[in-house]
């Protein structure tokens, strides 16, 4: 029911442009720019099971709020961290961008998309794929992400090693 929202729903080209901007931040490994695409109360969630209901009472791979995004961007690349002694390079592809048939914030919109991301780390390129769910809101600074859910195809598999950066 977008009629109740303060702003008219952006057209898909605008949404697409915004999602590409987010992917570009990650491809440039620029977490300082990336986290600014989120609202102050924004969250980023990567569950361990396909239908996971709660990030708080079940374990997740990621569930970052502003605080953890702030710590993570300061920790990223720290030469004291063994895991940060290597380049991280990313390449994201996003497609099938569409409005979700239901759900989403009362003051915004839920957008679904499919993604494929290749992450180069420690001499190996790992291929990730799955679905993004973006809850977007319109602010004075333009579109922002209130919540992003990343459903990895292999979220519960026995093949996931370290994941060094948001997907």
């Amino acid at each position, binding site marked *: 029911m977008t009629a109740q929202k303060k702003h008219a729903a952006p057209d898909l080209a605008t949404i697409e442009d915004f999602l590409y901007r987010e992917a570009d931040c990650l491809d440039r490994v620029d977490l300082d720019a990336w986290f600014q695409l989120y609202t102050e109360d924004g969250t980023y969630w990567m569950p*361990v099971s396909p239908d996971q209901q709660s990030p708080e009472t079940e374990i997740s791979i990621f569930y970052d709020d502003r605080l953890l995004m702030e710590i993570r961007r300061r920790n990223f690349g720290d030469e004291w961290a063994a895991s940060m002694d290597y380049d991280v390079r990313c390449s994201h592809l996003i497609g099938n961008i569409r409005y979700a048939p239901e759900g989403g914030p009362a003051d915004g919109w839920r957008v679904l998309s499919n993604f494929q991301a290749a992450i180069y780390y420690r001499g190996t390129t790992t291929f990730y794929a799955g679905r993004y769910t973006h809850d977007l809101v319109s602010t004075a600074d333009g579109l922002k992400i209130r919540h992003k859910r990343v459903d990895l195809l292999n979220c519960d598999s026995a093949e*996931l090693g370290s994941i060094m950066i948001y997907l």
Partner: protein
Amino acid sequence: MTDNHTQQIRDLVRKDSVHRDLYVNPEVFELEMDRIWSKAWIFVGHDSQVPKAGDFYATEIGREPVIMVRQTNGEVRVLHNRCAHKGAKLTGRSQGNCKGFRCAYHGWTYKLDGRLAGVPARKGYDGTPFDMKDPKFSLRPVAQADSYRGFVFATLDPHAPPLPEFLDDAAATLDNIADRAPEGEVEVAGPPLRYLHNCNWKMFVENLNDAMHPMVAHASVGNAARRYMEEQPEGTVYPPEAEIIFPFGSSYEFFDKMKITALPNGHAYMGGEVSIHSDYSDVPGYMDAMVKAYGEDRTKKILSQNRHNTIFYPSFTAKDAVQAVRVCRPIAVDKTMIESWHFRLKGAPEQMLKRTILYSRLINSNASMVGPDDWDCYTRIQEGLASDAKVWLDASRGLGQEEDTGAGRRKSFGTSDLSYRNQIGAWLQYMTSEVAA
């Protein structure tokens, strides 16, 4: 081969050092599968994963696929996940519910207790040795299975000592996890987090009582959190994340005071009365629920036990004060699956579970700012051990400074290598014990 490699194995372990073959030699790994993972009690799961009759959970004991399944009489059995006909695994799923098992290949069916229920077109076996009642045509139960406070262990060795004897005082960690629930019971909360490690299984287990690494390997996340907090306005209340992250940067003296206690069979625990989990804030309502259930004295006693990591050698590690456990499943000499499982304290406020989950996400997750640094260090060792420059790993810290506290138990300062040497001692014991012909 006649001596079962016994002398070769003994030559790999010195009083103060360990040969790299323990970590990189595939032949050693194969022997470990037979002599350790087929002999010791291995953690299978928690009985709350299979609450109803027919609920099953499939996993491995070493290399052996097994199924933990709830019977109609409430008992939990552990069966080999292998059809008695051609050996196919009976379930491809790791969990589910069924009335009985049916092999997907030729349709042999089994009751929940493993007894053969039927084979298609049985007439074809007329006049052959096939017998519905012969146990060799049923699903084989593992040699021994038992549970302690709901934690199910099994062994492939019919001669292994009973589970309580194997656990020794490590059992008190499981008691404490369950006792921290006002109802005296815990249940698994949600699916596990799986994290594939590119290292030998022993590196992971050894690290859990290694108190010389947190202030180095985990310095960066603490510093990042501190830098962020310092930028906040004066008087900002530290969030729970800070309570969890900061103790990892504690001093050598702090970890020394935590003490390390080595137990028989390679088990050990850090802490006891204080640990890096001692100073967590109270969760509203939890104390009231505990005192109501246990009274003040007993509550105080339960909450005063604070073991950081207890190692149940070789397969299982637990944190009593956090209600989180990690399960070690070796796959190859340089590949190990680590599963993190989490428990709800029955009768406690949901906030307790949220803290358990927050803890594990901050520390154990593949994407945390702690776990990947451990992961990287293990991988570096695995890679570094390829070098012929030095083939011995040092294990000498605190050697000769342990105190014998009786009954096969020893105690030392927290940053001692005592737990490492204790695990290697158990390793040698398993690896050189008489192997049944």
